[in-house]
């Protein structure tokens, strides 16, 4: 089991990795990826019951993770590579012609760790529910995780899925909302206010938890708390507060870094704030 310090080191390395990847192709989405680096580190190095060296689409007897907001592909690929799903050198192919690391994730090129395509928003929770139903039919006691963006909750399908999961007692699923309060066009409250998120999920019949997504220790503790609510007839959602662009001072809490690549100068400035810990790819 890795210590919190070791996990923080991995998270810092992942932040370096994803910024270098995005800079190299001058395209990608650094803001949300930086904000969620701590969550991905906690999931892939502590929380998930998984087998990175023997990936299969079916993932039997393993926990499953689905990324609904597929534009966070960069941080996901980093977590997958760093935890052993595929060689870290492949990170350098991100978004380049012929890569398995497509701009948005897809199983089409058989990249280990990815089980469904995402990018067009609002669909991942439904997919996770389907996979959770199969776990139940197969009598597997594993958990299905799904990460969504907060802006993504503006998609109606999310609420179809939310209604279904509660009504049908899909209680082997933990959904996580990346609540950084930013989307492409600006603050979520200005684009289309989500209102009281906790009350909304509660009214839809979910158990609602909250956590600071940029504190690895808290992430682990709260998800472990959520695990205790598994198999108790209700789906679980964690409203995870994060800071978009976390770790790079000039990117933090600024929606303009949703989908813009840092140039070379900006990259160097960013990397100076993120110490190389376990070695660059």
């Amino acid at each position, binding site marked *: 089991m890795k210590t919190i310090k070791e996990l923080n080191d991995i998270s810092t390395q992942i932040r370096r990795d994803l910024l270098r990847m995005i800079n190299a192709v001058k395209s990608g989405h650094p803001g949300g990826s930086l904000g969620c680096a701590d969550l991905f580190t906690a999931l892939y190095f502590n929380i998930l019951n998984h087998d990175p060296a023997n990936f299969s689409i*079916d993932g039997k007897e393993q926990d499953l993770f689905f990324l609904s907001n597929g534009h966070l592909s960069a941080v996901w690929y980093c977590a997958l590579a760093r935890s052993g799903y595929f060689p870290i050198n492949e990170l350098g192919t991100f978004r380049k012609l012929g890569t398995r690391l497509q701009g948005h994730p897809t199983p089409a090129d058989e990249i280990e760790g990815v089980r469904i*395509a995402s990018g067009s928003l609002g669909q991942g929770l*439904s997919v996770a529910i*389907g996979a959770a*139903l199969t776990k139940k039919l197969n009598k597997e006691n594993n958990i299905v995780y799904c990460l969504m963006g907060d802006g993504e909750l503006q998609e109606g*399908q999310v609420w179809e*899925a939310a*209604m*279904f999961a509660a009504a049908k007692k899909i209680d082997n699923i933990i959904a996580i909302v990346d609540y950084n309060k930013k989307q492409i066009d600006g603050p979520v409250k200005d684009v289309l206010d989500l209102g009281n998120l906790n009350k909304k999920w509660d009214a839809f019949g979910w158990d609602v938890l909250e956590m600071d997504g940029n504190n690895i220790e808290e992430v682990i503790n709260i998800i472990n708390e959520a695990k205790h609510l598994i198999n108790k007839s209700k789906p679980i959602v964690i409203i995870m507060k994060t800071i978009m662009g976390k770790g790079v001072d000039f990117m933090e809490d600024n929606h303009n870094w949703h989908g813009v690549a840092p140039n070379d100068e900006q990259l160097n400035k960013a990397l100076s704030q993120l110490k190389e810990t376990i070695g660059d790819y």
Partner: protein
Amino acid sequence: MKTYQILSNKDTRSGFGDALAELGRNNKNVVALCADLTGSLKMDAFAKEFSERFFQIGIAEANMISIAAGLTIGGKIPFTGTFANFSTSRVYDQIRQCVAYSNKNVKICASHAGLTLGEDGATHQVLEDIGMMKMLPNMVVINTCDYNQTKAATLAIADYLGPVYLRFGRPVVPNFTPENQKFEIGKALLLNEGTDVTIFATGHLVWKAIEAGHMLAEKGINAEIINIHSIKPLDKDAVINSVKKTRCVVTAEEHQMNGGLGDSIAQLLSQTIPTPIRMLAVNDVFGESGKPEELMTKYKLDSIDIVNKVNEVIEMKQ
């Protein structure tokens, strides 16, 4: 002209429902999902007998398609059921991303396709579904002609690994293909050998093509009639070999001309052996309320319309 006996009059959707129940008994990985149209889709038997493998989604088709994609992860074979319009145009992006691009083993089963849905009118009469589905890479597109063939197709697609769109309909129509037939995806079926023209028909238009064949025979025209149940993959060899002999083509379908079977045949022939062709299809208009037969007459999708198109195309050939 070969004579086909009407074994019974049945709706194609019942072929789907009966096969689904049979699949439930024989394949424990088959699961079914429905969006509040269980009775219309004839899924009641499966739902009753295999309640733990049947998922009532409610009126949320987008959720249904994405859940179905998720169910494949771990080895289930999901069959989704709703009207053809809600199976395709309503959920195109979910199908594109979660099913086709992700190449998931989902069977999208769609009833009440086309004008023969009848009185509910154009909101429900999808005439664009074949086009939408065939444009998607990885997607197989099947449109069956009667009860027996729909039943056989439903059984067959469970054994095929990959996304399938299976289209059938609402009305009671002649059931004339063999009971317990073997169904091969991508295989055209020769119904009548002929030399003067090839009629390629799909779905409810197959029986109309047989009726037209008899009318043409009375006038001394010997029509080759081919049932195309698999629009994608298309049986290219069967199409080309027939056309090499007859040198002119009529296509017939309950669908828009844009994107339909005729469009696929024309695309193939124009790049292999350019051939005079006439297409029976709805031509860039929406349908309307009416009795199925009235609509087929008004939109010129009846056997007499096939005869008229045959006469036109034979004249073109000469």
